[in-house]
């Protein structure tokens, strides 16, 4: 089998390999009445759901996604059966001849969900919100919606499954190799030790390959099992675009009671998240969205209601900023609206109300650390926010319609947000994350982890940490290839875990090696396992405790210009200040934040289903500054910050530029036209 650890799955091949394809549902929702197909040539293998030898589903925490639509179709693109054969063209021809008859039903939508669509609910009351609303000086309402965001990189999802001795060897791009192993073993009804997963090269997955790779790998493994040949299953571009998980759409309604000074005293928040046909990662999504929706500001009373809505679209995955991005978009856009209604500039309002030491997030959650002094002020200074905001406000008040002014329309927005690392509902992880470090007699150090580092930056950070702690040259440090037969399970390389959790385990292991170095004989092997804090565990029912071990904070200003004729929005500049504890490899960290900003802008301006993806020349000048926390201490996650902080700043900027109040993503020229033409 031609296998190279630096190959993409599409470049891999095995002797006698067959190609696989998936027959998918062509209706949004319905029932399969019949499947008819012509005589199947001997070289082609068909696999039907009832032939699955093991568990016909992908499980993740407490959720379960059926691998096939056995009778009922839950979403367009749901797998119905599998085919494999040596000739892709012949396979495609046969697939054309397979006729599937359906009885169609109305698709389940997100706008007005039925009771049966609610997969999960939360209702939390903190303090006395009713009394606060009765005594309120002013009440501000708003509803904020976000769209799905599609993951677009050019390498297609896929898997190659082959057999080596008694083992099933799966090669695929994934952020969680042990999840793929567990799923494939369960689907084939095999012990886990008989399945080996080797991670192939992939484009940065942005947390959209946490569990979807397991689905593709399981399908591919079933075809290999039935045909008794190696099989490669590659999803086509359009197929991947249709069925790959996306960022979950959200709708968040606020009623906020303000005191005489315009400060919030109570929030009534009603949140709905569209999790697609199955609530994979749903509990986590809901928890994070709700926490973020309560905002980073001080308030005494809350009524929080949240529901996870199942709909007739493919299930959603994490995507960078899982839940937090949707929650902070609403919280920060709402905060900017309150500032405007109370005739306060956004900086003054946000600075005044930002959570301070001894304050509680969402009334009960304990922040691991508070926003550093000067986070917002430095962003304001870098972007010249105060002057620009005042100037654009003056221009806004002077014009009656956006066509009044011959020149372009400008605005600037400001937002602040935080991110944690890892899962909030982390106690549900099937086994604790682990890392092994081994110092050999020849002085070389091996780091064994299933952590996946597609861009190589996490790998470089682990090496740098080990080199610093042990005083070993980086070239003598080797990070293992993520192969489940060689390394311990370090959990998913998602939600900034690579640096915060795996990175910390590497550091702790290296520190133990230092302590043992002159007392024990070489080789020295140390295994470190993630220990969850015993005290202050997060309580989702009461919203108390510590939701994340630590928080990274960011503030951002976004300046936009709207063309008065075409209504297209150009971003003139982005300034962001980040506080994430100790900054490892600053140039790399800067690249991570910049890339996050680009993807956040994409979410702001292009809707799913549109063919448009942003071109390079649309990218604005970006200034990133890290607030120094010295060379020691904890390292925080940064990958999700841009998705949390940029969208609301962008929307506020467009709102100021157009004199219209925007409360939704994406903002397209068509939307601006509709908002500006409506009275």
């Amino acid at each position, binding site marked *: 089998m031609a296998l190279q650890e*630096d*190959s*993409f799955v*599409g*470049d891999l091949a095995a002797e006698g390999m067959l190609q696989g394809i998936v027959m998918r549902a062509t209706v949004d929702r319905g029932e399969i009445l019949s499947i008819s197909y012509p005589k199947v040539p001997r070289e082609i293998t068909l696999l039907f759901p009832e032939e699955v030898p093991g568990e016909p589903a992908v499980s993740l925490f407490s959720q379960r996604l059926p691998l096939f639509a056995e009778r009922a179709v839950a979403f367009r693109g749901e797998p119905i059966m599998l085919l494999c054969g040596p000739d892709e063209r012949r396979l495609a021809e046969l697939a054309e001849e397979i006729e599937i008859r359906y009885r169609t039903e109305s698709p389940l939508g997100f706008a007005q969900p039925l009771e049966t669509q609610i997969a999960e609910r939360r209702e939390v009351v903190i303090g006395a919100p009713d009394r606060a609303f009765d005594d309120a000086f002013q009440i501000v309402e708003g509803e904020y919606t976000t769209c799905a965001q599609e993951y*677009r*990189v*050019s*390498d*297609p999802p896929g898997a190659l499954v082959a057999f080596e001795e008694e083992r099933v060897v799966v090669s695929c791009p994934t952020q969680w190799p042990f999840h793929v192993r567990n799923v494939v073993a369960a689907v084939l009804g095999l012990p886990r030790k008989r399945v080996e997963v080797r991670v192939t*090269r*992939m*484009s*940065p997955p942005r947390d959209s390959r946490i569990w979807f790779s397991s689905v593709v790998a399981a399908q591919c493994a079933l075809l290999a099992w039935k045909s008794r040949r190696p099989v490669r299953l590659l999803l*086509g*571009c359009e197929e991947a675009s249709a069925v790959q998980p996306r960022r979950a759409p959200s709708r968040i309604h606020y009623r906020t009671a303000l005191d005489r000074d315009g400060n919030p005293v109570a929030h009534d928040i009603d949140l709905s998240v569209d999790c697609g046909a199955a609530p994979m990662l749903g509990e986590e999504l809901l928890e994070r969205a709700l926490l973020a929706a309560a905002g980073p500001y001080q308030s005494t009373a809350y009524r929080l209601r949240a529901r996870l809505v199942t709909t007739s679209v493919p299930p959603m995955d994490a995507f960078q900023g899982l839940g937090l991005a949707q929650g902070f978009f609403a919280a920060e856009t709402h905060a900017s609206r309150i500032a405007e209604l109370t005739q306060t500039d956004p900086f003054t309002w946000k600075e005044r109300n930002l959570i301070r030491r001894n304050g509680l997030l969402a009334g009960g959650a304990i922040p691991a650390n508070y926003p550093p002094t000067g986070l917002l002020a430095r962003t304001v200074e870098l972007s010249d926010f105060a002057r620009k905001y005042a100037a654009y406000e003056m221009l806004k008040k002077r014009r009656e319609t956006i066509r009044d002014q011959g020149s372009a329309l400008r605005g600037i927005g400001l937002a602040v947000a935080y991110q944690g690392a890892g899962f909030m509902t982390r106690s549900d992880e099937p086994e604790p994350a682990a890392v092994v470090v081994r110092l050999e007699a020849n002085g070389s150090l091996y780091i064994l982890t299933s952590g996946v580092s*597609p*861009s*190589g*930056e996490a790998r470089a950070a682990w090496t740098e940490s080990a080199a610093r702690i042990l005083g070993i040259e980086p070239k003598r440090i080797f990070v293992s290839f993520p192969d489940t037969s060689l390394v311990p399970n370090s959990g998913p390389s998602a939600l900034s875990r690579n640096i915060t959790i795996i990175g910390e385990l590497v550091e702790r292991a290296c520190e133990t090696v230092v302590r043992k170095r002159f007392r024990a004989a070489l080789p020295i092997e140390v295994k470190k396992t993630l220990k969850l804090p015993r005290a202050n565990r997060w309580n989702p029912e009461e919203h108390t405790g510590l939701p994340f071990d630590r928080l990274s904070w960011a503030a951002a200003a976004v300046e936009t210009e709207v063309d008065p004729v075409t209504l297209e929005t150009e971003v003139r500049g982005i300034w962001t200040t980040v506080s994430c504890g100790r900054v490892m490899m600053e*140039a*790399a960290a*800067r*690249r991570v934040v*910049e*890339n996050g900003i*680009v*993807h956040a802008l*994409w979410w702001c301006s292009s809707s799913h289903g549109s*063919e448009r*993806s*942003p*071109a*390079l*020349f649309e*990218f604005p000048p*970006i200034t990133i500054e890290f607030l120094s926390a010295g060379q020691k201490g904890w390292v925080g996650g940064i990958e999700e910050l841009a998705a949390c902080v940029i969208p609301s700043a962008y929307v506020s900027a467009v709102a100021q530029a157009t004199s219209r109040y925007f409360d939704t993503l994406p903002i397209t020229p068509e939307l601006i036209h509709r908002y500006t033409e409506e009275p």
Partner: protein
Amino acid sequence: MNVTFTLNGKSVTVNAEPDQRLVQILREELQLAGTKAGCYRGECGSCSVLLGGELIPSCLVPAFAVRGATVVTIEGFARTREYAEIIHAFEEAEYAPCGHCLGGRVLAIHALLVRLPSPSEREILAGLSGIRCQCADVSSLLRAVNLVAYSRTRKPHGRGGGRT
């Protein structure tokens, strides 16, 4: 149908279906995996090759259109000094594309600099917009292209280099 063309400086003949695309010929018939298959719509740029010196998405080129043409893939371009220069600039600028778009990106930078030896920032971004993969940051890309442009204008190829 037999198609003969010049690939990376050598004449090759392949037996291809008329509707087979150049990217499939390169990857499946000739095992040149450096040209990546992406969208098959000419959008992503991962399959870019130089066809008669022009940067073209090979997924849009049918087999019959390659007859007699000169095609350079990343494997062929990797043997040139220009390639080494671009990769060196990537390292200098700490620019790390994902690998799926790498070949297309390198060829796009080369094609751009042949056309515009000293491009402005906007020209760089517009010129490289055909590669849509968003795996890496734009600032490092700009730095890398500027480094290549600078080194090429300082050391004209074929003249032994050096400041004059």
